[in-house]
């Protein structure tokens, strides 16, 4: 496996350009995913058919769910003369044939390169009464799927959120970041458990984790309703989870409707969950109910009871910045050593934040990289290996090549099922993470030990 990879570390200047085995993909897939978090929405890809096809495939493989979307089906003509006609035709046909409540258009590198003016085209389109068309600019040559998600979130706010000028309602908006529906459900549960009403968007619960039902529904019952999104401008605050995926939308909502945004991390790990709960507590003057306190106590209890199963083990973590940052923090909480930490998404503050956490924890000798790729990681591992990999399914090649166990977290995970239904956020998510990590390490111990060291109790 991966024998073509050089055995010896490369000279420093051997790689200056391009990406080998990336830890990011392009903006549109994130925008498409975000759009699926609106109830009755058909995402629309303004570009070649291939983009839409690739994105739908990626999402369906990860979620084991339909990922409906239409495309402007650019041909060479459209590419040369502009895609306005294609988009207008698309909008007309989509409403006529599929009858969504809303179409959420995102651009592609193709439509961006030719410079299609989205607001104008949309304005010129036939939109049935009571229906909506919104858009986000998501050129593939900028940012990553995470910023694409963020851009669509911002687009949703810009087009839909409104303030009626009345005093704000005792209600939280939740921008959940690029997370699985299982995570979104859990975040909503936590806020609900605290007695605070909330509007989450995008909200892919009930869409990308929808049940099979007696009859087929092209637009599943889940997702944030347009009415709720519109009303989010009247909420008291926005819990903005994930700087990369949510903060821009929150800032937009703040400046548009005066709803203050509280920048938080996606609540992975004890500290990030504590922060979410404290933000709700402070924002709404509510008490933390016993069930959440018990859940938290169970996590700490577990960490204390079984720390020896993982403490001191070295980990390589890679994935999206909003996932990796709190995850690294949690690994530090577990007493583990995040030795290599990478994201593919650009953004210098990633390195600053992660290095800051490592420094605070007194962990030395780790390597952190934004705009890194798995080829980088593999080279580092060849220099000095780790006990564990945590990241998306693409890590499985290194896992096999270097015989390191892989805990699958993040997007995409194409080779295991059920996981998008299972939260890694909140205190419950902590237990899941601890279980996954300790199990995989104990499995390895059981695998590698001699017969005489194979034990009934661990």
């Amino acid at each position, binding site marked *: 496996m991966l024998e073509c990879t050089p055995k010896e570390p490369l000279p420093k200047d051997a790689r200056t350009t391009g990406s080998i085995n990336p830890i990011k993909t392009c903006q549109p897939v994130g925008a498409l995913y975000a759009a699926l978090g609106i109830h009755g929405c058909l995402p629309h890809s303004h570009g070649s*058919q291939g983009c839409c096809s690739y994105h739908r495939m990626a999402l369906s493989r990860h979620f084991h769910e*339909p990922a409906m979307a239409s495309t402007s089906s650019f041909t*060479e003509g459209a590419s040369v003369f502009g895609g306005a006609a294609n988009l207008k035709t698309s909008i007309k046909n989509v409403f006529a044939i599929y009858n969504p409540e809303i179409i959420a258009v995102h651009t592609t*590198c193709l439509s961006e390169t030719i410079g299609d003016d989205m607001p104008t085209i949309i304005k010129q389109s036939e939109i049935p009464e009571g229906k909506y068309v919104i858009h986000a600019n998501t050129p593939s040559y900028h940012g990553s799927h995470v910023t694409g998600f963020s851009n669509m979130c911002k687009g949703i706010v810009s087009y839909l959120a409104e303030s009626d000028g009345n005093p704000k309602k005792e209600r939280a908006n939740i921008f959940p970041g690029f997370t699985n529906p299982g995570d979104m459900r859990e975040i909503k549960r936590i806020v609900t458990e605290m007695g605070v009403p909330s509007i989450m968007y995008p909200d892919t619960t009930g869409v990308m984790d929808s049940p099979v039902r007696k009859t*087929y529904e092209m637009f599943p019952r889940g997702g944030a309703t347009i009415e709720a999104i519109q009303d989010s401008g009247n909420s008291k605050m926005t819990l903005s989870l994930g700087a990369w995926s949510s903060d821009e939308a929150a800032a937009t909502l703040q400046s548009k409707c005066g709803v203050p945004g509280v920048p938080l991390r996606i609540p992975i790990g004890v500290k990030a969950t504590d922060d979410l709960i404290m933000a709700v507590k402070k924002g709404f003057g509510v008490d933390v109910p016993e069930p959440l306190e018990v859940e938290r106590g169970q996590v700490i209890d577990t960490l204390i009871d079984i720390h020896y199963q993982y403490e001191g083990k070295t980990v390589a973590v890679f994935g999206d910045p909003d996932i990796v940052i709190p995850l690294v923090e949690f690994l530090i909480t577990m007493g583990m050593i995040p030795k290599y930490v990478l994201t593919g998404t650009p953004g210098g503050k990633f390195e600053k934040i992660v290095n800051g956490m490592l420094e605070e924890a007194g962990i030395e000798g780790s390597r952190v990289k934004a705009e890194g790729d798995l080829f980088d990681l593999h080279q580092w591992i060849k220099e000095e290996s780790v006990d564990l990999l945590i990241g998306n399914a693409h890590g499985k090649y290194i896992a096999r090549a270097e015989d390191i166990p892989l805990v699958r977290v993040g997007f995409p995970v194409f080779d295991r099922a059920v996981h998008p239904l299972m939260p890694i956020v909140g205190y419950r998510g902590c237990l899941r993470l601890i279980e996954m990590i300790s199990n995989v390490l104990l499995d390895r111990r059981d695998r590698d030990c001699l017969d005489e060291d194979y034990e009934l109790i661990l």
Partner: protein
Amino acid sequence: MTMTDVNIDEILAPMPDKVKKNRRKHIVKKDASAGCRPQIEANTRTVPGIITQRGCSYAGCKGVVVGPIKDMLTITHGPIGCAYYSWGTRRNKARTDDSTPPDQIYSTMCFSTDMQESDIVFGGEKKLAKMIDEVVEIFHPRAINICATCPIGLIGDDLGAVSKAAEERHGIPIIHYNCEGYKGVSQSAGHHIANNQIMERMIGTGTEKVDGKYVLNFLGEYNIGGDAWEIERVLEEIGYTVGSTLTGDSAYATIKNMHTAHLNLVQCHRSINYIAEMMETKYGIPWLKVNFIGIDATIDTLRDIAQCFGDKELIARTELVIERELAAVTPEIERYQKICRGKTAFIFVGGSRSHHYQFLLRNLGMEVMVAGYEFAHRDDYEGREVIPTIKSDADSKNIPELHVKPDTEMYRPPHLRLKMSQEKYDELVASGVLNEYRGMYPDMVNGGIMIDDANHFETEELVKVFKPDLIFTGIKDKYVTHKMGLPSKQIHSYDYSGPYTCFRGAVTFAKDVAHSLSTPAWKMITPPWEQSITEQR
């Protein structure tokens, strides 16, 4: 309502008029009583806004045809997404072998120039050139592919020039493909572009003759799930030597020498017929359309191939292998037939599968009611005889046509390749065995629907009409189908099973289909509290 009563116009009725008019031409009903085969529209633009299954030219070129060449390092020139999505997602299996040592396989790797905004503005040629230099330094590949994505054509990067300069710097072939996603109307454009470069830049550049009494190339077989390996196993038992497949588990190192083979087998007609035809013209290698999907189809194909050489011993050995393989699988097949028999299916897929799998399904007692291709041309439905009548349009015109002529040195007449007389050869051609493909239509069930570029709306409507028991489709529609309460099998990826070819593959397929049909969860969709009293346990 019987099948033959199905009214296509009614199905399309809710569509806007323009769309309806367009789509009506892509849908044809098999009418066995009619004397002629109806014309179907294919390889034309998808109506914008329609939820199509189609992909793009890049997917056809990089994803399907050139990506699988295992010893070539393929750089996708463009923003990150296209390389990313075509990384490890197509199950075109490849392994180390005599031609390719472990350190020369790049199948699990993804190379992208990862273009940024400034590259779009100022051009990406320098970045590409630099990346070529770096990967040569790091990986020492034998040859490199450069595949273009959408912006490349628009910003005017000259891939030919960059490649040529790099070739000169590094002394290895660097082959570029202008397969921007917007080219053509589907993946098909990409196949053609890839075919052209493989023909021009690879085949015939080698100097090693493939040893073997009967040397076959195997075109249009991508070794999904190991399909090619199972076919090779059977072919080799009979006594054939496979020179190279195109492009499943293939290597640049062997593709170079494909021109020395005796016969080209064509499995996927759509993606590879260009090369088959060009090799016939340029090198004199005849081609035979084959189908290893389905037990009877495999037997027919094996007999056809033996017939092409006409060697009695070969024919006898063929029958022996057929008999042995058949004996091994028949009881298993019968076991699964019990579950499958009488069931109906739809099949929507690219390539030739919507045709091929009808044979295998019939072996299980199943019938295909609706079949369609994502990116076929008319000849895939109607047979090659319609090729001369196909009008080229703006979209097809922009794909370069190669015009080859017999190679002055390497051309060897087809009958000599097959070691037979000119007369015998002519007879084989005339009887439609060689250099011929008759398309899907003749094998469709009467009253069944042939549909080109089927979309979500039509699928939903056709399900209501035909109430199939199972839909063979791709990942985009798999879970849609499940939500409709219908089993589906991915017939691009086989739901990560396979191989499905030849005899043993038929058993694996039968098991997978039987499991899909019978998995107990299907009976449990309605919760007991929504069941009438009589339904409840």
